[in-house]
């Protein structure tokens, strides 16, 4: 089995069992309301990560690299992580709260909950601003320390 299949029989049995359960669930989905949309969303989820999120953050990292080089001049204290971290956290907060931040379909939400999405955009910007400021302050301290260490 190993030579033809490429792995142990346990590998095959475990996969067959798992796929049987997973395909059962896919079968139930095909019977559910708006089945096509669910399937589109399942495929879209892979694309969301592999074709949008990953290329986007890889590209952003390249931009961060050139920006960091402009800041630190390739010097002793690299600026890259001082950019990477706040940018990533800012994006992460956006991903986790975009409907409230962008006030998408706020009417729906207000109708059921009585409250609206006031302040989410402001708080997202505020927390992001604090992260950038904290990161910049930390960078300034590290540059100063490095300079002092060199001067000694």
């Amino acid at each position, binding site marked *: 089995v190993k030579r*033809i*299949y*490429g*792995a142990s029989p*346990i*590998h*095959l049995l*475990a*996969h*067959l*069992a*798992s*796929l049987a*359960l*997973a395909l059962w*669930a*896919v079968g139930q*989905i095909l*019977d*559910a*309301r*708006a*089945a096509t*949309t*669910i399937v589109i*969303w*399942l*495929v879209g*989820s*892979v694309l*969301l*990560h*592999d074709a949008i*999120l*990953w290329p986007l953050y890889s590209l952003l990292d390249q931009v961060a690299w050139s920006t960091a080089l402009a800041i630190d001049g390739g010097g002793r204290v690299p600026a*890259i*992580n001082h950019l*990477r*971290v706040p940018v*990533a*956290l800012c994006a*992460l*907060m956006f*991903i*986790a*709260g975009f*409907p*409230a931040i962008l006030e*998408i*379909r706020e009417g*729906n*939400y207000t109708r*059921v*909950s*009585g*409250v609206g999405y006031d302040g*989410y955009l402001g*708080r*997202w910007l505020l*927390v992001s601003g604090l992260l950038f400021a904290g990161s910049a302050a930390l960078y300034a301290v590290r540059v100063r320390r490095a300079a002092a260490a060199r001067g000694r």
Partner: protein
Amino acid sequence: MKLPQPPGPFRPEFWDSPLRGRWMTSMLGLLTLLFFGTSAITGFLSHAAYNPGLGTNAIVPRDADLPLTFDWLTSPSWLYAFTQGLHVTVGFAAIPILTAKLWSVMPRLFQFPPVRSPAEAIERVSIGLFVSSSVFLLATGVCNVFYFYPFAFNFVVAHYYAAVIFSASLLVHLVVKLPIVFSKLREQGLKPLHQDLASTVPEPYDPEDDVRARHPADPTLSRRGLFGFALGGSALLTVGMAGQSLGGPLRKVAFLAPRRGGFGDGPNDFAVNKTAAAARITPEMTGAGYRLELVHGSKTLSLSRAQLLAMELQTADLPIACVEGWSTTQAWTGVPLAALAAMVGAQDAGQVLVESLQPRGILRKAALSHDQFMADRALLALKVNDADLSPDHGYPARIIVPALPGVHNTKWVGKMTFS
């Protein structure tokens, strides 16, 4: 015939991160398992908490469900607030962890040739379902807590079956990968976490392990730095969300949470899942003509709010805990459900179907089990924090049962049928 290798990410030279390797993937895998495992278990518990076997409670069709449910408990009263708060908060916190985990194995997506054996083909199908369902669960979960429905499907049904696909592919992934994880842990333990940036070295290139870079760049982040980065993201989202479940002063700290504030005046100022207006409850329905109907077999009884208020009342501090993760504990005063059951001789009934005055909506009625309506502190609440319930909190009367999912605490109760 040998196919020519496509350019870009299909070439090993494209990948130059010095951190990728089996140790990194193993550790991020364990972290992902911890987060997703917690969310999966609490998610399936929530499915059971709805008692889908009773009345019309099932949202996932009963004949197309897995036999994973059991009689939900009524104690401790904060049980559902805890499990569901955990489900949502940990689910949000899993976003950066899953992103890091997928980053660590990205080169495998582009391996060339894509499939080298039948074993690899079947494994890749399973990995595809794994990635698809995990991202789907996070994406639909985030949309749902914000009432943002850019889809026509039923969230509960789709989220549930996606969780089944996820669990099935997770289990087989563990069967295949845990031996590698354990061997890496035995070999290196947590040693790589002790290395700072200066002492961070790539794992040596190994053509068998295709996530390692052939020509690694200089590291800009240590391995523990990467863990700190991902966990820092989780911590930030936890701070942003957890307050809506924990309550108290932390509620206002939860800067991203949808239910960080209340809705109502004075004693009624706490979060509402569905306003009276959204449920189409009118003042005529709840005014002087309001009657609560109790039915048990041929026995029926009709009670006005004044008659209910004249009964022996009980006060209990109980949480309302929403499936969306938020919860709020209030002091409710009302008639014990057991006393109402006794009035129609239904102490031994198996269940009670509670119907709202609300004219439509799938959650306008909910069935409670015998243990639930006979539970200590299970009330038909008439007051909250010593004031009459506000219309949005269910005036004239609402159900409040310990550890019951929020929406099953039916508001504007019009009829209770014991059977």
